[in-house]
């Protein structure tokens, strides 16, 4: 595989920088700052120290013995990003970007959040670095992820309710971009996934790439070989690229799982590769769900973190190259996988990660016992307990 993106932020034809002029100089500054930081051993050492001592890296690569026996096929390993501080992989990126923020001399950060995991991870690093923090969140997401709203507030962030459009992640990103346009000189926008204008898709991927590097090392140690397949859920797709990127040039199958909602044959899903086409949203050219006039369609998923109309541009690139296979899991399949892992491994996955597990449930039994699959368990499910209970008619 060639190294992507190119200097213009392009992954093949995807990516780019489709933003109002006001933001372009800030994106150029971010690009420069990141390029310098990447070459600076002091920056790398500081980041590594925080990842080890604050986030708790390396996260374990856990052999899910009971799940493997239950499914009766390939050996299944879970990359335990759910054990990161704050409960998801998101903090790998927010920590890196918080360091970039202070390097640029900015004192305020803003962020969008869907499931609230990125918002919590931003609020956390903002508290730790003493930065002012506003997090934009759709009101529908605030309802279904109420616990994370409280967590962000306790951490000292202001949660700004977004009541426009679909009242989910898409609208939260629009509001964040508007805030950033207004306060661009004092504020850094910590974008939470491999989305948005260049250099965000590259920066977020690079900060998440620690997941794949660790996995490779751990896999060599415990199995003495590379895995046969990697599986991850794909909303924007940062946990997936975090896991995949270290294996891009290896003979390893990769599977990205989008949110199938009520089914990709219905209008209610967030599966961009099943029902989408190429367009531009939030600064990047990529596959997205839109109508014939280019208006962005409303999406649906039981998982707030996957409920978004566009996919990261690098995924679109791998999709066209067929380097990664993209599939989807419905709400029901994800909920069943949530139950399964909870009951037989005692690990409660985030509903986002449960989509990846749902694919493993279908895929693992078709492989022989000497094959090995790694699933990115990108987040823990505590935030979803209330939502799942409500879906089942119980109150917590």
């Amino acid at each position, binding site marked *: 595989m060639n190294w992507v993106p190119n200097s*213009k932020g392009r992954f093949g034809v995807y990516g*780019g*920088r*489709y*933003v*109002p*002029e*006001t*933001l*372009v*100089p*800030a994106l150029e500054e971010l690009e420069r700052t990141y390029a310098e930081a990447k070459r600076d051993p002091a920056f790398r050492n500081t980041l590594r120290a925080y990842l080890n001592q604050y986030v708790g890296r390396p996260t374990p690569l856990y052999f899910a013995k009971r799940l493997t026996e239950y499914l009766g096929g390939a050996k299944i390993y879970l990359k335990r990003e759910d054990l990161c501080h704050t409960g998801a992989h998101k903090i790998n990126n927010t920590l890196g970007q918080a360091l970039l923020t202070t390097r640029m001399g900015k004192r305020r950060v803003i962020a969008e959040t869907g499931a609230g995991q990125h918002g919590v991870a931003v609020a956390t690093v903002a508290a730790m670095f003493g930065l002012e923090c506003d997090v934009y969140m759709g009101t529908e997401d605030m309802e279904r992820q109420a616990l994370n709203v409280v967590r962000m507030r306790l951490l000292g962030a202001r949660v700004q309710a977004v009541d*426009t*459009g679909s009242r989910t992640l*898409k*609208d939260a990103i*629009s509001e964040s*971009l*508007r805030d950033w*346009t*207004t*306060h*661009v*000189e004092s504020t850094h926008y910590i974008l939470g996934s491999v989305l948005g204008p260049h250099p965000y898709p590259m920066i977020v991927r690079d900060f998440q790439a620690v997941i794949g590097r660790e996995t490779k090392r751990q896999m060599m140690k415990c199995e003495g070989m590379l895995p046969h397949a990697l599986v991850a859920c794909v909303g924007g797709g940062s946990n997936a690229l975090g896991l995949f990127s270290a294996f891009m040039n290896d003979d390893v199958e990769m599977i990205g799982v989008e949110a199938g909602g009520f089914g990709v044959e219905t209008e209610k899903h967030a599966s961009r590769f099943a029902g989408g086409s*190429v*367009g*531009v*949203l*939030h*600064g990047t050219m990529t596959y997205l769900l*839109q109508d*014939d*006039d*280019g*208006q*962005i369609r409303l999406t649906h998923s039981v998982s707030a973190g996957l409920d978004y109309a566009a996919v990261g541009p690098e995924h679109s690139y791998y999709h066209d190259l067929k380097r990664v296979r993209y599939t989807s899991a419905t709400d029901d399949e994800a909920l069943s996988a949530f139950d399964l892992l909870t009951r037989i491994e005692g690990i409660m996955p985030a509903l986002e990660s449960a989509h990846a597990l749902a694919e493993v449930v279908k895929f693992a039994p078709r492989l022989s016992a000497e094959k090995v699959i790694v699933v990115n368990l990108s987040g823990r499910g505590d935030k979803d307990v209330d939502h799942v209970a409500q879906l089942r008619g119980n109150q917590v």
Partner: protein
Amino acid sequence: MGRIHLTFSQLRAKNQKALIPYIMAGDPSLEMTEALVLEIERAGADIVELGVPFSDPIADGPVIQGAAQRSLQAGTSLQQIFRLVQSLRTRTQIPLVLMCYYNSILAYGEKRFCHAAVEAGVDGVIVPDLPVEEGAGFRKMARISALDVILLLAPTSTAERVGKAVKASQGFVYYVSLTGVTGAQLVQVAAIEKKVREIRQASQLPVAVGFGISSPSEAAAVASIADGVIVGSALVKIIAKPAERSAVLNRVSAFVRDHKQAVS
């Protein structure tokens, strides 16, 4: 020679400045937009900017977002806006500029968009999410079709970016008066003046200033330092207020007249 260029030349000869009102096409209906454009012209506007509604307008504040939402709910499409312009062209020769997010152009097809726009009688297009590094192919197609692509510059634009943008822009240069979205509060005129002077040094193109201008006195202040003044959100607010059709047209007319007087 295009209508935009002609309008600015004529104004320059008379030592006048352009008033460029913005309204959202299809808010509340395309039929009303047609009546509004004609009324705005009668009241003295020099160029009219027509918003093309988009579901996720990241450069717009709440007022224009609301207008886009209403227009989309009324079922407005780009195709219908072209038909509206075609119909307007039987009654007016005022320069018409579309403000259109890039995804609407992509979905329509870049080449097809340029042809249909020119065919209908559109003179220029402003694409708020297409900075100078992107869309070179689109600008080339537009140039071949004689459709002006008007680029935006902002307070944050570096001298290097000003140079690149004025080279690529046609018709005029749109200077965004503040770091913010449409409908924000205007900042100091002195800061705008400095940047406008910088743009003028780099280019022969007229410079129109927009974002945050909401009163005749602000329009007058900006007109004293630029070639044109764009008023959007303040006008869209008048149209959004529920009232009899004739009352809306009267208010819009008075608004445009007052602002034209202020910039003259």
